[in-house]
């Protein structure tokens, strides 16, 4: 039971082993093994969620094994394989489990080289779960890089026309982010001789140790590390000037991969910002909160305005992601429990919503062969169920009360109004714009006259409808009963904030 985080992380490898033995011609078997192989992790992560003690602060299910020593000048620097889960990672692990399984179902649209696809897909899951569950920075970095390489292949082989360019751009941009992260982690290693999160917490929240450090000129170094971390996770999130790669990925990757990319991978940026920024560098975060808030504002407005003028449905959603990630930044910048809760809520909620919308896109592309808005229209007559789901997803995206988007936006803005009312007030413009671009996209695809040549488009099969309804169920669940994810993270976030002295 204590080893649960490790089981969750490595379980997909079981599927990898099985897949390796299936000849690549047997596509049906490969598909089903690929989908089934995501189930152990899902079941275990739900088990983790159920047995997670919400009344306890700190890391649970922690376990660590000795990995290796690095002898440096007679000292031995210890590198541990440490895993564990706390209130911040719990919700993210749970949605990763859910989204990966559903994305595996959406991967049934993949028509070629299924064996390689599912191998990499499962590897990607290992990486993502590991990122959220690792309690050692070295280990975290390894998992982070696994997601990078796996996603590179998934985009580059199974994407649309410009897949190669997109994959390489994805790789270089994120490689740059990883490079910054690596430098930052190594800086921490050299300052504190350990990359254990628990150990780093001790030092970073021990005023004596910090004072000693700043006397010896470590302050600038700490700032350097902090900035490198913000850039690293800022590229992943992405924060405004670093967002171009992510637009391409949204437009060019296969929809099932975008479900994961938008639903989970981007959230690694948010997770990193909170985990390594807010939690580890409270002083620096406080000082930089103003900048973060402005960056968030730019993200919201820029994303929203551009989403409005896109002709490709995928690009509308891509820009809306930029906008919604801005809300996460605002939540973080508010530096209070509401704001942070909003940020995590937004991560989870946007994960579900974008997974749902891209599932819809996958189904849509399967039927019409296009996602250009002006070549669609009137689809509600031909596929009422799918259109209904799309409408519901759109409502969630624009933040309709009763759905998850509302809760998260409400919390994030509530937090920010406390500290920076003007920024928050301007940010709400983004919410209005969100309603405009979402409704425009939904209306123009599903209502109006049917586009010529679409008379034979069929409505959803049950294999499509059920996963989408599952996603919708979670969206509504969080909307009406936010405690499902609010409860586990409550204490952790409170501790983070209280350490800040706020």
């Amino acid at each position, binding site marked *: 039971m204590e080893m649960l985080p490790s089981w969750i992380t490595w379980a997909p490898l079981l599927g990898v082993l099985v897949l390796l033995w299936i000849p690549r011609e047997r596509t049906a078997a490969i598909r089903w093994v690929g989908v089934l192989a995501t189930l152990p992790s899902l079941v275990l992560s739900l088990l983790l969620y159920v047995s997670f003690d919400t009344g306890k602060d700190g890391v649970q299910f922690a376990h660590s094994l000795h*990995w*290796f*020593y*690095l*002898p*440096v*000048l007679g000292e031995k620097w210890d590198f541990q394989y440490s895993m564990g889960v706390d209130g911040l990672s719990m919700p993210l692990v749970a949605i990763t489990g859910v989204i990966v399984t559903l994305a595996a179902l959406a991967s049934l649209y993949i028509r070629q080289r299924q064996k*390689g696809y599912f191998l990499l897909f499962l590897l990607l899951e290992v990486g993502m779960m590991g990122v959220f569950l690792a309690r050692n920075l070295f280990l975290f*970095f*390894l998992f982070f*890089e*696994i997601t*990078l*390489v796996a996603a*590179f*292949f998934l985009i*580059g*082989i199974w994407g649309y026309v410009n*897949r*190669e360019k997109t*994959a*390489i751009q994805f*790789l*270089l941009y994120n*490689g*740059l982010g990883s*490079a*910054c992260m*690596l*430098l930052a982690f*190594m*800086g921490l*290693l*050299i300052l504190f001789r350990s990359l254990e999160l628990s150990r780093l917490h001790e030092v970073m929240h021990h005023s004596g140790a910090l004072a000693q450090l700043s006397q010896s000129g470590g302050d600038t170094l700490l700032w*350097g590390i902090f900035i490198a971390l913000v850039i690293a996770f800022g590229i992943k999130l992405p924060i405004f000037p670093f967002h171009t790669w992510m637009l391409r990925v949204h437009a060019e990757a296969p929809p099932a991969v975008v479900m994961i990319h938008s639903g989970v991978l981007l959230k690694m940026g948010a997770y990193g910002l909170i985990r390594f920024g807010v939690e580890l560098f409270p002083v620096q975060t406080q000082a930089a909160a103003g900048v973060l808030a402005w960056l968030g504002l730019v993200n919201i407005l820029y994303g929203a305005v551009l989403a409005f003028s896109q002709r490709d449905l995928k690009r509308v959603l891509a820009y809306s992601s930029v906008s919604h990630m801005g809300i996460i930044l605002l939540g973080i910048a508010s530096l209070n429990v509401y704001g942070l809760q909003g940020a995590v809520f937004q991560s989870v909620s946007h994960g579900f919503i974008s997974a749902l919308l891209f599932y819809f896109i996958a189904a849509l592309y399967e039927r019409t062969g296009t996602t250009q808005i002006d070549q669609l229209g009137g689809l509600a007559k031909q596929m009422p169920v799918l259109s209904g789901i799309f409408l519901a997803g759109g409502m969630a995206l624009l933040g309709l009360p009763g759905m998850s988007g509302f809760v998260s936006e409400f919390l994030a803005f509530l937090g920010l109004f406390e500290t920076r009312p003007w920024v928050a007030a301007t940010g709400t413009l983004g919410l209005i714009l969100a309603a405009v671009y979402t409704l425009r996209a939904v209306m123009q695809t599903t209502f109006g006259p049917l586009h010529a040549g679409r008379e034979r488009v069929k409505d959803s099969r049950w294999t499509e409808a059920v996963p989408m309804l599952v996603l919708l169920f979670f969206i509504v669940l969080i909307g009406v009963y936010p405690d499902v994810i609010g409860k586990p993270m409550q204490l952790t976030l409170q501790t983070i904030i209280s350490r800040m002295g706020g």
Partner: protein
Amino acid sequence: MEKVLLDYDWTVMAPEIIIAAAAALLSLADLFLRENTDRRFFSWFSLAAVIAAIFFTVSRFGQQPYEILGDTYRVDDFALAFKTAVLSGVGLVFLLSAWGVRQEEIRFRGEYDYLLLAAALGAMIMTSSADLITLFVGLELLSISSYILAGIHRERYASNEAAWKYVVQGGVASAFILYGMSFVYGLTGSTNLYTIQQRLVEAYQTGYDAFVLLSLFLMLLGFGFKIASAPFHMWVPDVYQGAPTPVTSFLAVVSKTAAFALVLRIVLVGYIFLYQMQIWQQVVEPVLLVLAGLSMVIGNTAALHQTDTKRLLAYSSVAHAGYLLVPLSTLGAVLFESTFYYLIAYLVMTMGAFTVAALLEREAGHGNISGFAGLSRRSPGTAAAMTVFLLSLAGIPVTAGFFGKFYILMNALSTQHFWIAGIMVGTTVISYYYYFGIIRQMYFRPPASKDRMRVPMVPALLLVIGILGTVGLGVVPEWAVHWIGDLQWMSALTPLNAGPPGP
């Protein structure tokens, strides 16, 4: 007390003697065998000799340092470690040659093997001598054998061109080294590194400081050529491309390792006093760091638009020389450890990559990167192996290359050299582009022909060794790190106390 020749324990030289004997034996056999006899077993024989030499080298670990004839031959942990690495590299090259060098292509199949053994012998001397004369002899033995090996494919124009360029530029480099050494001799009156160590300080303090630095920089000029660092890298792409692939892998792996052993030994033993006098930090370190930075930038950017696999790997080798120079210039706490670890990592991943390159060269008949197209369809195993090697070369976890870079970076950061760490990390990201360029060919492009590619036993074995090494060193670095960390590296820097020969 005067020692007579027979007072020395000559068994410590067993590895060198074995290699020399094998080379002599093969050269005789070559004479007596008929011209059209298949000489492929020469490679197997040489491989056996190398394995025996490795055995004798490894069995000496843990014993006291020992020297013969006033340090002209010296075994300490430094020498043993580098010799093991050199010999392992040579062994892998012979394995590759046993399959990849064909008599119908290279007429001098016999010469090939014993020249390679001679080169290996030179490399071994470079690792385990502390006298300028023997070190230089080792260097020249390695270099001259390599010149011939680069041009051994006599019918091919590229091979001739490679040999020609290599001879000319290599000769110039050797001349610079020799010129620098002559200054050292002039200043100190000795060729023994430990005597030099003492007397250079005096020379420096008595007004000859400019000459001391001049001698160092003249030698560094030549060393820069031998380790293939920028801006002395002009020969690298042409020679790597033109030479037969097993020879290229030898140049990349063995020559580089031996050259680093030589550089570390001479520079650190002879000039370490500059560090205590703060001159190192002011003069030498900036120069070395600029060399390192230039190598990384030039190697990694020039590799971006290469279309020939070996040429691409050549520029990658320049970049790696840059990474490897960082610990030497910053002199951190884990200088030897990180350099050596990286060299082993480089050995396994580069040998793997060259094996795949050789396979495809034979299969496609050319060395262009397009030969990789669709490899994942034609031979999934080979493609996966190459992916592992490339990821490692690009420094992506969980591979040997990543951990090696991590180790080097740690050294650089702990000595507060942030900008070189920044360049290293930045150029590494640039290098993703061309390493992944090959991966793109293998996985994203359709194959030229549909038939599966057959991988013979020997290259397959090499690939397995490469993968085990690359992944093993990355996932469980502890084994290697501990072994390396326990070695008495510093014994290389101090002279033996005169005493009776060991037991």
